[in-house]
C-alpha cells in the first residue's frame, strides 16, 4: 500500500465556518472598515487558518458512510432535496441519489460542486430554505474530510504526467540561456494554444508535427550559426554625424524658397517685401516636428528627409573619428511618434553583429519634472510603397541631462534581429530606385510635451567587444585538446550536451554524437561547421525538447520522507532542477542548479528553498512574471484589442502601458513578498506617465513603471481596477459586465461559470422597449428569461459592480447622462455596492477562495499539466501553509516549489 498515512494534520475543517449570507455584522459597520481592517477581519474566518488536528490515521482509508447516514443525509434531506430531488430537479441535479462513497463512487464531481456552493453561501437560497450554521458546518466538514481522503487515494494511485515538450517561449529562453544570446529565436514556430486553465504549458496540448520538428531543426542550425563565427573580426564601419552637418542639406532649400518667392512677386515690390519678411520670419521659429536650430544665426529648419536618391545618406568611415566638442547647433525633437530625427546610413549596415548607436543629447527644458524619453527605430524606404519602420530600442531612454550638460546615450542593437531589412540593399546601387539605403530614427516618445536637443549621432557596426565573441567561446572553448580534432569534439559535445539536456551525459550518448560528427565531418569545410550540424541535432533531440520523467530510475525523497508524508514517487534531482528552472525562469537550469542536482543537495528542502530565493532574485524571474500573469489573466484578449476602433483616449502608448501594468504589479508584489490579497486591493499601483494620466494620478513622469501611492479615493488598486484588464473585458466601445464577471470568476476565483446553452435568446435591440433601457436594465431583462437565469444570476452581479469603469477602464459617474448604477445583488442577497463593495465582499468573505484559486493556478503552471482531483488535497495543504505564513506571493511560490506535489511525478 502506498498510502501509509494519508491525511495531513491541519486540513480537516470541523468547526463552524463563517458564511457571507449568515454574517450578522451590520453592513454599515463593514463599510466603515478600511481595506487593511477588512483584510484582517476576513482572515479571521479563514478555514485554512484554523489550527486543527487530524482525526484520521488509517492504514487503509475508508469512506465514513456511517457519519453520512447518521448526520449528513438528514440535513440534506431537510434543506436540499425539496428542490434537488425526485419531484423538482433544479439545475438538473438530484441530491438524494448521489453516491456518498467518495473514495469509490462516481459522484465526486457533484460533491465538489456541493461543497463549493455551501462554502460560498450560494445555496440554499436564503429566502427559501433555512440551513442552520451548525448543519452547514457539519456537511462542509464531512465533505472536506471525505474529499481529502478520496483525493489522496487517487493521487497515490497515479495517472498524471508532466511529460511534455517545451513551449515556444520556454524553447526560446532556453536557447537564449544556452547560447548566451538575447535573440528572438522561436518566431518561426507556430503559436501555442491555451488550455481550459488558460495555460500554454499544459502537457495535454503540446503536440508535435513534422512541420514543427523540421522548424526546430532549422532554428537550431541557424541559431548555432549565429552564435559561432568564422575567420577574422570583420572591420567596423563608423558613421559620425553632427547636426551641423545634417542641417547643411536644409539651409539651401530656404534660400531657394526665398528666391522663388521673390521671383513670383517681382512686379510688386511691396508685396514682395511683405511676403519675403513673412517667410523669413518662419525661418527662425520653432516647429512642431523635428527641426534643426543654428544659434549663430538664430535660424531653424524642419528636418525634411526624403528617400529618393539616398541624398540624405551619410558615408561611413573605417575608423572612429574623434567626438567633436559639444555644439549648440542642434536638432530639436519635440514629443510625438509621427516624426523624428532620421539619420540615413546608406546600404552598408551589416547583416549580423551589434549596431552601437550613441547620441549626445539633453532635455530642452530646465524644469526637472519634464524629463523626455527617447526611442530608437530602424527603417528604410526603397520605393514609394516598399518601406518599413520598427522600434529597435528595448525600452525608452530618459533624457535627464540638462541643456548645459548634454550626455552620451547609447543603444546596442543586434542587427540580425531586425526584420524586415531592406531586401534590395545588396542589389540596387545607392542613388537608384529602389533605394537600397537604410536609416535609424530617433523619436521623442514622451507621454507629454518636452523637447529633446541633440547635437551628435554616432553609429558603429558591427561591434564585437571580443573576438571570437563570447557566444562562440562558450561552445568552442580553449582547450589543451584542441590539437586533436576528435578529442576536442568530445569535449565540446560533452559540455554542450549536459547543458542542453540538463543532466549528466552517458559516455554512450557522447559516443553516438561523436560518431555523427565523424560522419558529417568529411562533408564540411571545418570542425566548427560540422559541429554546428551535430549540435543542431542535440538541440532537436527529444532530450532537449521534452520535459522528461525518467521511469527507469526511481528515487526516494531526500529528507522529505518525514512521518505523515505521502510516499508518492519522486522525480530525480535533475528533473527537479529542470522543473524549477521552467517554473521560475521559463528556461533550462543554470550551472549552479545542475551542480546541486549532481550532488543531490537539491533534494534537501532547505537547499531547495534557498535556490528558490536565489532564483527569484535573478532577472530571469521577470520572464515568469510576464508569462504567468499573461496566461493566468488571459491577457491575449488585450493583445487582440484593436486600437483602430478609435475609442477616444486610447492610443498605442496607453495600450502598451495597460499590457505592462498587471505584470509590473505582480512583480512588485513578488519582489516584496507582499500579500496576494494586494491583487484584490492595494493602496499603490505600478504606473508610468501615460497610465498615470489615464488614471488622473499627478506627478508621474517618464515611460518607466514605478510604484505610485494611491490616495484613499478607492477608484484604483489591485487587479480589478486595472485599465487593461477592464478594457480587454469590454466590447471596444462600452463596458461588458458579463465578460468582466466571467473573467473575475475564471481567473481570480477559479470558479468558471458554464458556457451559454446552445439556444440562447439574443438581446433584441430592435425592440423599442429594450432599446430604451440602460445596459444594466437590459442585462436584468435578459436574466429574467428562464433559460438564462441560473447562469446569469451567478455572473451578472459580479460584472455590474464594475460599471463605474468604461470601455478603456476610465472612472465614470454617468453613462449617457444617467448616473452609473453599479449596485447589484449576489445570489445570496449579498449586496455589492460597486467596485468598493465588491472588493469589500471579496476581502471579507472570499479570501480563502481567492488564495486557493491562486495556488491552484500557480501549481497548474508550475507542474505544466492540468490538475486532477487527485491533486485536490495537495492544493489545500499548500493553501493552508500559504495562509498561515501570511499570504506572501514569494512565500506562495516557495511553498509550491518545495511542496511534495512539485517534487513528485
Amino acid at each position: 500500500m502506498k498510502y501509509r498515512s494519508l491525511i495531513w494534520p491541519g486540513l480537516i475543517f470541523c468547526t463552524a465556518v463563517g458564511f457571507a449570507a449568515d454574517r450578522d455584522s451590520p453592513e454599515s459597520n463593514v463599510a466603515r472598515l478600511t481595506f487593511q481592517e477588512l483584510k484582517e477581519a476576513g482572515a479571521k474566518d479563514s478555514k485554512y487558518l484554523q489550527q486543527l488536528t487530524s482525526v484520521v490515521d488509517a492504514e487503509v482509508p475508508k469512506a465514513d458512510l456511517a457519519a453520512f447516514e447518521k448526520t449528513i443525509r438528514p440535513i440534506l434531506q431537510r434543506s436540499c432535496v425539496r428542490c434537488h430531488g425526485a419531484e423538482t430537479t433544479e439545475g438538473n441535479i438530484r441530491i438524494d441519489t448521489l453516491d456518498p462513497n467518495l473514495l469509490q463512487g462516481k459522484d465526486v464531481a457533484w460533491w465538489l460542486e456541493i461543497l463549493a456552493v455551501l462554502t460560498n453561501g450560494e445555496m440554499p437560497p436564503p429566502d427559501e430554505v433555512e440551513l442552520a450554521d451548525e448543519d452547514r458546518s457539519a456537511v462542509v466538514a464531512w465533505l472536506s474530510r471525505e474529499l481529502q481522503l478520496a483525493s489522496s487515494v487517487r493521487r497515490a494511485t497515479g495517472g498524471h504526467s508532466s511529460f511534455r515538450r517545451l513551449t515556444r517561449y520556454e524553447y526560446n529562453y532556453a536557447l537564449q540561456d544556452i547560447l548566451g544570446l538575447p535573440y528572438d529565436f522561436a518566431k518561426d514556430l507556430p503559436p501555442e494554444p491555451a488550455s481550459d486553465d488558460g495555460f500554454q504549458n499544459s502537457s495535454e496540448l503540446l503536440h508535435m508535427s513534422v512541420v514543427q520538428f523540421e522548424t526546430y531543426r532549422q532554428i537550431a542550425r541557424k541559431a548555432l550559426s549565429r552564435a559561432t563565427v568564422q575567420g577574422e573580426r570583420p572591420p567596423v564601419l563608423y558613421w559620425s554625424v553632427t547636426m551641423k552637418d545634417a542641417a547643411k542639406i536644409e539651409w539651401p532649400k530656404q534660400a531657394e524658397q526665398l528666391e522663388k518667392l521673390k521671383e513670383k512677386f517681382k512686379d510688386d515690390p511691396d508685396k514682395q517685401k511683405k511676403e519675403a519678411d513673412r517667410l523669413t520670419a518662419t525661418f527662425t521659429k520653432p516647429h512642431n516636428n523635428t527641426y534643426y536650430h543654428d544659434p549663430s544665426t538664430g535660424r531653424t529648419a524642419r528636418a525634411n528627409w526624403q528617400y529618393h536618391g539616398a541624398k540624405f545618406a551619410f558615408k561611413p568611415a573605417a575608423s572612429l573619428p574623434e567626438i567633436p566638442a559639444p555644439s549648440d547647433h542642434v536638432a530639436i525633437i519635440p514629443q510625438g511618434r509621427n516624426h523624428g530625427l532620421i539619420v540615413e546610413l546608406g546600404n552598408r549596415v551589416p547583416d549580423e553583429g551589434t549596431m552601437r548607436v550613441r547620441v549626445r543629447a539633453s532635455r530642452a527644458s530646465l524644469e526637472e519634472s519634464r524629463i523626455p524619453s527617447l526611442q530608437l527605430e530602424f527603417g528604410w524606404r526603397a520605393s514609394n510603397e516598399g518601406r518599413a519602420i520598427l522600434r529597435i530600442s528595448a525600452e525608452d531612454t530618459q533624457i535627464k541631462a540638462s541643456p548645459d550638460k548634454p550626455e552620451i546615450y547609447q543603444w546596442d542593437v543586434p542587427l540580425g534581429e531586425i526584420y524586415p531589412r531592406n531586401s534590395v540593399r545588396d542589389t540596387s546601387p545607392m542613388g537608384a530606385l529602389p533605394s537600397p539605403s537604410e536609416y535609424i530614427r530617433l523619436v521623442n516618445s514622451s507621454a507629454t510635451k518636452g523637447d529633446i536637443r541633440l547635437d551628435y549621432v554616432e553609429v558603429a557596426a558591427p561591434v564585437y567587444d571580443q573576438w571570437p565573441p563570447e557566444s562562440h567561446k562558450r561552445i568552442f572553448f580553449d582547450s589543451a585538446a584542441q590539437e586533436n580534432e576528435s578529442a576536442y569534439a568530445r569535449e565540446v559535445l560533452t559540455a554542450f550536451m549536459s547543458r542542453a539536456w540538463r543532466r549528466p551525459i552517458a559516455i554512450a550518448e557522447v559516443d553516438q554524437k561523436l560518431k555523427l560528427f565523424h560522419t558529417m565531418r568529411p562533408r564540411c569545410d571545418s570542425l566548427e561547421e560540422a559541429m554546428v550540424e551535430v549540435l543542431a541535432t542535440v538541440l532537436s533531440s527529444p532530450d532537449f525538447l521534452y520535459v522528461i520523467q525518467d521511469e527507469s530510475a526511481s528515487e526516494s525523497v531526500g529528507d522529505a520522507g518525514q512521518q505523515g508524508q505521502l510516499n508518492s514517487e519522486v522525480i530525480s534531482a535533475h528533473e527537479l532542477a529542470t522543473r524549477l528552472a521552467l517554473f521560475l525562469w521559463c528556461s533550462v537550469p543554470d550551472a549552479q542548479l545542475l551542480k546541486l542536482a549532481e550532488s543531490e543537495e537539491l533534494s534537501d528542502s532547505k537547499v531547495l528553498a534557498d535556490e528558490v530565493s536565489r532564483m527569484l532574485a535573478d532577472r530571469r524571474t521577470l520572464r515568469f512574471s510576464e508569462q504567468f500573469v499573461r496566461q493566468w489573466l488571459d491577457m491575449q484578449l488585450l493583445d487582440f484589442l484593436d486600437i483602430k476602433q478609435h475609442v477616444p483616449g486610447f492610443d498605442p502608448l496607453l495600450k502598451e502601458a495597460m499590457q505592462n501594468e498587471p505584470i509590473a504589479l505582480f512583480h512588485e508584489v513578488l519582489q516584496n513578498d507582499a500579500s496576494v490579497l494586494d491583487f484584490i486591493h492595494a493602496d499603490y499601483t505600478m504606473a508610468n506617465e501615460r497610465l498615470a494620466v489615464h488614471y488622473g494620478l499627478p506627478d508621474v513622469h517618464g515611460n518607466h513603471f514605478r510604484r505610485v501611492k494611491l490616495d484613499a479615493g478607492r477608484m484604483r488598486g489591485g487587479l480589478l481596477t486595472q485599465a487593461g484588464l477592464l478594457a480587454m473585458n469590454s466590447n471596444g466601445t462600452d463596458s461588458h459586465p458579463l465578460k468582466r464577471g466571467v473573467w473575475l470568476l475564471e481567473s481570480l476565483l477559479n470558479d468558471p461559470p458554464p458556457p451559454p446553452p446552445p439556444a440562447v435568446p439574443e438581446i433584441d435591440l430592435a425592440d423599442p422597449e429594450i432599446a430604451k433601457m440602460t445596459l444594466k436594465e437590459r442585462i436584468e431583462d435578459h436574466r429574467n428569461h428562464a433559460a438564462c437565469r441560473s447562469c446569469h444570476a451567478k455572473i451578472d452581479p459580479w460584472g455590474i459592480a464594475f460599471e463605474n469603469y468604461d470601455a478603456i477602464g476610465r472612472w465614470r459617474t454617468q453613462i449617457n447622462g444617467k448616473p452609473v448604477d453599479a449596485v447589484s445583488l449576489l445570489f445570496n442577497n449579498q449586496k455589492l455596492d460597486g467596485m468598493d463593495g465588491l472588493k469589500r465582499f471579496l476581502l471579507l468573505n472570499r479570501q480563502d477562495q481567492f488564495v486557493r484559486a491562486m495556488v491552484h493556478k500557480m501549481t497548474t503552471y508550475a507542474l505544466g499539466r492540468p490538475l486532477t482531483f487527485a491533486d485536490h488535497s495537495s492544493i489545500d495543504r499548500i493553501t493552508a501553509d500559504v495562509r498561515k505564513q501570511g499570504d506572501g506571493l514569494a512565500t506562495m511560490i516557495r511553498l509550491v516549489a518545495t511542496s511534495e506535489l512539485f517534487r513528485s511525478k
Partner: protein
Amino acid sequence: MPLNLNSLDRRRFLRGTGLALALPLFETFARSPVRADDDPSTPRRLACFYFPDGVPMPLPEDPAYRDWAWFPLGNGEEFTFTKVLEPLEPLRNDLTVLSGFSHPAARSVHGHSNADQFLTAAATGYDGPYQNSISLDQLYAGHVGEKTRISSLVMSTDGGTGTPRGAHTLSFSRSGRAIPAEHRPKRIFDMLFVKSDDDAARRLALSDSALDDLLTDTRRLRKRLSSQDQRSLDEYLSSVREAEIKVAKAKHWINTPLPTVDADHLNLELTPDEPRLYVQTMFELIYLAFKTDSTRVATYQIGRENGVGKSDHLARAVGFNLAHHLSHETKNVNGWKNFGIYCRFLNEEYGRFAMKLQQTPEPAGEGSMLDNTLLLFGSASSAFHLSRNYPLILTGGKNMGFKHGQYLNQVGTNAQGGAWDGRTEPWQKKATHIDEPLSNLFVTMLQGLGIRTEKFADSDGTVSEIL
C-alpha cells in the same frame, strides 16, 4: 484516466461534453516513400498569376465603357467580353470571371502596397512593422510538393523578393518570409531540365545522418518513459519518420534522370526588353514544367506594383513606354483605350498559355491538361489604387469539379471606378459594395485540388457558384 479538477470541481461538467483525449499519432507514415511516377492519380496543378496597377474601370456612362472596361458586360452565363478580355473568348467555357472579391485586411490600404498579400490575405499594411503569412500556392505545395522534382516554381518579371510592400514574388513561406522569384528564363530552364544542385545533395546527406541520429536518441529515451509518456513521444517519433521520408523523396529526385524537352523554339536569354516574347517564354516554361510533371505548383508575378522595375517596360509590347503610367492617364483622350490595350496584351498571353494546356491531352490521365490544372489570374486592385473588387479569372480544373462559362458578377454595374480627376482617389472614397473575402475562393480552390480544409486565413465560407 485522470480527472480534470477544473472540469470537476467547477461547473464545466454541466456542459455535458466528454473528455477530449489527445490521441497520439500512430505511425501511419512509416511506409516506403511514394514516388511520383507510382502515383496512380492524375496530377492536380495550380498556377497563380498577378499583374499590377489595376484595370480599366470606366463608369457605365463613359463612352469607353462598352469597349474598354476590364470586367465583362452582363452576368452569369449571359455576358460579353469587352475588347480587353476578348482574346479569352476561345476559353469561354473553361473560365469564370469574378467580381466583388478582395482581402478584407488590406481594403483600406493603397493598392500599390498590396501585391504582397494577393495570395496570403495577411494584414501587410503600408508602413511600420511587417508580417506576412503563407501563400495559397505554398500551402498547396506543402501537400503535393514532394511528388515532383521541384515543389513549386516561383517566378516574376522583376525577380528576387522585392521589398516588403513592394514584393517581387507572390509566394510566402509558412512563417511569412518572401520566397525569391526567378526572372531569368535560362535559370528556370536549367533548374527544371539541366542541372541538379550539388549543395542540395550534400544537405540531404547531412539531414539523413542527423535524422538517423535523432531516431537513436528517441528510441533510447523511449525506454526510460512510462507507457503513457511513450505514447506522447510517439508524436515526435512519427515526425522524425515523416521527415526521413521527405529526405528520401528528395534524394530520389536527385538520382532520377532529368526529363528531356525540346527547347529549340525557346530563346532563354530573353529579357523584358523584348516584352511579348519574354512573357511568352515565362508562360511556356510553366507549361513545360507541368507537362513533364516537374512541378505541380507555379506562381508568376507578371509585374510589380507602382512601376518601379523592369516589368514596367512590358507596355512596350503594344507600343507604349511604361505600363504604370497608363493607369494614371485614363482621363486623357484614349486613356481608357490605351490602358485597355495593355491589359488586352496580358490577356492574350495568358490566353495563349491556357489554350495550350487546353489543347494538350493529359499525359497520363483523362481530358486535357487544362482540365487538371487550376489557373488564377488577377490583381489586388481594380479602379485607381482601389484595393477592392479584384479583377479575377479562374480557369481550368474541370476534372476537379469546377464549373465555368460564367461571369460571377457580384458587384453588378455599380462598381467603383472612373478616371482620377486629381481630387479624392477612388480608394479613399466610401465603398459602394461590401466584397466577399477572396480567401473564400482560395478555400474552394484548395478543396477542388483535393485538400481537406474549411479555412484559409480570414475565410468565412466557400464559393459554391463555381462548383
